[in-house]
């Protein structure tokens, strides 16, 4: 039992060291020639295509769920016309960012870990090194930058889907007309709410991509270990998303970024 425990501790230490070293490697190689422009383009396309479906569906579900909750409580406290304002505020300031980042970690983060882990397992990373190609530069940097650029766009798509489904549900279930819904929503929404949520989004993308690539990059072992590493990737990234959001939330409340 204690042997298994110490093995698990060792595995998590290795995972921590892998991700930590990837942060250092990323910044070391980011400003060195040649910049992988072609790979960046390929990865943006890939991340957008792979992430579009799940973030759009998540947006629709979140929109309907928040509109229903806001409408239900609004009816209970006789402020049902404010359901649009409440649901959109929660959606745009927190929900689509947080849930979108979690979906991104599950779909794209794990894909990065498995892909790079398989490359490590089959010797492709060593083959790159022998061709005088630095794998961090060729493999990791395009994926991280593509994630930073793509996740805010995917969040925008998710936001549009969420707003759409919230409006439809409010209209059909609580009989709130579209003008009333939007009128009340615009009273509480500020551009700073959107700005800060998109900045948070880019931060999430950066940490998710680096963690996922780092775990794949320093992967050792066979198929079973690759499975475990993929699980670690999603666990670490979900915790990371929650921690970033908490820290950002605390700082926001201290400095008042989203209410400026």
């Amino acid at each position, binding site marked *: 039992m204690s042997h298994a425990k110490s093995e698990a501790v060792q595995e998590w230490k290795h995972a921590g060291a892998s991700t930590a070293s990837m942060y250092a490697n990323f910044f070391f190689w980011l400003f060195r020639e040649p910049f992988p422009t072609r790979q960046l383009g390929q990865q943006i396309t890939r991340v957008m295509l792979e992430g579009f479906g799940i973030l759009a569906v998540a947006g629709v579900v979140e929109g309907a769920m928040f509109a229903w909750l806001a409408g239900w409580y609004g009816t209970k406290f006789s402020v049902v016309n404010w359901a649009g304002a409440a649901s959109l505020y929660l959606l745009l300031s927190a929900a689509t960012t947080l849930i979108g980042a979690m979906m991104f970690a599950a779909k794209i983060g794990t894909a990065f870990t498995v892909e790079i882990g398989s*490359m490590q397992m*089959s*010797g*492709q990373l060593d*083959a790159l*090194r*022998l*061709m005088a*190609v630095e794998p961090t530069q060729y493999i990791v940097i395009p994926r991280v930058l593509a994630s930073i650029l793509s996740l805010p766009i995917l969040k925008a798509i998710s936001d549009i889907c969420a707003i759409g489904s919230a409006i439809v549900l409010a209209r059909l279930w609580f009989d709130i007309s579209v003008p009333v819904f939007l009128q009340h929503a615009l009273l509480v929404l500020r551009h700073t709410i959107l700005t800060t949520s998109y900045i948070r989004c880019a931060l999430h993308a950066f940490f998710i991509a680096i963690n996922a690539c780092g775990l794949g990059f320093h992967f050792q072992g066979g198929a079973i270990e690759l499975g475990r590493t993929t699980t670690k990737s999603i666990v670490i990234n979900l915790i990371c998303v929650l921690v970033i959001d908490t820290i950002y939330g605390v700082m926001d409340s201290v400095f008042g970024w989203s209410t400026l």
Partner: protein
Amino acid sequence: MISARGVRFGFPGRPVLEDITIDIEESLTTVVVGRSGIGKSVFLKCITGLLRPQAGSITIDGEEVVGAARGQLLAIRRRIGMLFQEGALFDSMSVYENVAFPLMYHKSASGKEIDRRVRAYLDLVGMLEYTHAMPRELSGGMKRKVAVARAMILEPRYLLYDEPTAGLDPASAAVVESMIRRLQREGAITSLVVTHDIDLTRYIADRIALMEEGRITAHAGREDAFEEPSAIYEHFIENRERIRAENGNQG
């Protein structure tokens, strides 16, 4: 010439190479034989600087690999091509793109020149008709042939083969063997092959070294190696016959 002196390497709690000393002579094919898991592949990775030995020295054309700065290591690696065990082709690229990749990434030739060289090397390994195929569509032997073409495209002085016939059926192994032999004849390249395949060794080796317990315990020319008595002969023939006899008795 590749020269290793007193090379020692180990993973935490597991020593692998104890004291490797060997010279890989120019324009010859040296085969390092030894049982699986003894550290043959690790030795190749030490030569290419992918792993750093804890002690000893490895020189390529007189330049030290152990502890070399990144720039120096890259320059040394340009002289080396390596065939990995499974070929290590890039899954997302076609056969053509895999072979062209080193030239295209380093922009070391014009588009026309790249095309000419890619086609020439694919022709050399007999894979010219598969230029558009993806690695997943190829057999193990075909993947290794493409990997050899990719290793050759930068026209290295040294070609390292890591178990080139491992896991292949006899017919595919024979094709890979003939390809290595043909490359030797046509390219005058210094080759270092690590394997435990006796047939491959007999067919391609100019010199044979035996690795046991993390050391090179015997090093001889092909004729001497397969003469009785010799450590290499014993390793190959007697071990095989003894194991067969034991298995036969048990059966």
